[in-house]
């Protein structure tokens, strides 16, 4: 049985349908990438899976062997799913270490502790007592990843973590994910950068206008296949 099984997921904003019957599954320890242009429905898909977006229906939405359609995000996170949200969305009145420690609210013990997060992102150790509003974008992203890791997730969802960050910071962030995967967590990475997605993921799902238009093994898909699906036309040059 897959760690996450999503069948015929549809999501709405009022009368507007944003996701059209998406099927998706993630195996234990696997990393999948969801790619697509702006407005393709990538973030809505992640939010719907986690339960942050509740206006959705599905034939099946199960995680770690449990049906989670009716559960709120707080309950899903206690089962072992966490999110690094788009725009980071750190708790602005909490300092760095408080933002990390609040991840313990999920009540899950495991490999990830504040000390282990500092080992993963050594820069955070010296910034522990600093307000997160005083950090650079890259440092804030480290805190956002650290906060999610502190819930000791079985499945980590990352929503456009490269957005607004310098390429060197993005590379270091993806480098750190290797350590996350060594500890056994599966990942869903939402990316607009096709190269980055191909480099990190085992499998790729390409989303266009709320539907999966291409999926497959990252090694077997060519950039042309992806570009065609991504933009809805053939790639030339």
């Amino acid at each position, binding site marked *: 049985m897959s760690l996450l099984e999503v069948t015929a997921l549809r999501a709405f904003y009022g009368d507007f349908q944003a996701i059209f019957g998406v099927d998706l599954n993630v195996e234990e320890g696997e990393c999948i990438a969801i790619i697509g242009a702006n407005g393709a429905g990538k973030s809505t898909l992640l939010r719907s899976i986690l339960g942050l977006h509740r206006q959705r229906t599905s034939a099946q939405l199960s995680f770690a062997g449990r049906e989670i359609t009716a559960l709120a995000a707080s*309950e899903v*996170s206690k089962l072992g799913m966490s999110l690094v949200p788009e725009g980071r*969305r750190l*708790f602005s*009145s*909490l300092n760095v270490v408080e933002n990390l420690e*609040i991840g313990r*609210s999920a009540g*899950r013990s495991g490999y990830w502790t504040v000390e282990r997060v500092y080992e993963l992102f050594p820069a955070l150790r010296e910034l522990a007592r600093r307000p997160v509003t005083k950090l650079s974008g890259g440092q804030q992203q480290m805190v956002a990843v650290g906060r*999610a890791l502190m819930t000791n997730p079985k499945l980590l969802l990352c929503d456009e973590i490269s957005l607004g960050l310098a390429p060197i910071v993005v590379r270091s962030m993806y480098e750190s994910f290797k350590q996350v995967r060594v500890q056994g967590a599966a990942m869903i990475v939402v990316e607009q950068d096709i190269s980055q997605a191909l480099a990190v993921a085992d499998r790729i799902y390409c989303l266009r206008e709320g539907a999966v238009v291409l999926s497959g093994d990252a090694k077997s898909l060519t950039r042309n296949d992806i570009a065609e699906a991504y933009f809805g036309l053939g790639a030339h040059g």
Partner: protein
Amino acid sequence: MSTTDVISLLIQGVLLGGLYALFATGLSLVFGVMRLVNLAHGDFIVVAAYAGLSVLLVLPIHPFLALAIVVPVMALFGYLLQLGLFNRVLGTDPFRPLLVTFGISVIIQNVLLLTFSADTRRLSAGAIETQSVAVGPISIGVYPIAVFAVALLVTAALQWLLYATPLGRQLRATSDDPEIVGIVGVERLRIFAIASAIAFGVIAIAGVLMAVRTNFDPSIGPGRLLVAFEAVIIGGLGSFWGTLIGAMVLSLAQSVGAAIDPAYQNIAGHLVFVLVLLLRPSGLFPRVIHS
């Protein structure tokens, strides 16, 4: 007016701020954590006063001991009210909680009127009400000092809770981003209920201590709400120490106004409130929970 009189006036004014701070702290907490403007806040203070009265009618104990019953009962009531009602009306439309709490205010006043009549009541705390300590030529009431000490304790305790405990972290995080706290396992609606329980616990203390200091009847809730609002706004939203200082500024202004002419007591307080709004719209100490 002699120098002694002026100093005495200022001390009385500052000490009254303790009671005002107790009125305001619950309002500050509830607004800070869940953006709920509770228009029935003052009426709940009056409910606590009547709850104290009811306890004393059944048990011949000191009003301060009655707090041991009224505080947990009010806290539980606040928890259940939040879960059962307020959580359902919180959302993107700010008018829904305003309308609901306004309705509750009207209901409370009428139920209290039917149950206890319009007669003014007061709780007797015995000798402490009239005892005073002499500091040189100035005489200071023991009861106002005691109430001020309680306000200091409550403020320090809440500040500690908010900034030095895991629960406080969850309260602040929920205030910052009530949606995203879910991804770390924090149940937003449960946190709201806990914040409400704490606020109602403070309301209970405020109500009973007020009932010993002044006469009360079912209609005085809106007046307490106004005091609480002004103290919170003067101090700066979300900061408990700011609320305490805001309450002291307000009570000091009222005392000075009353010394000039008793008719100026309330207007002096309102004047300071308007001045602060004009000059420092975020309050004197805007260290807000939400930034």
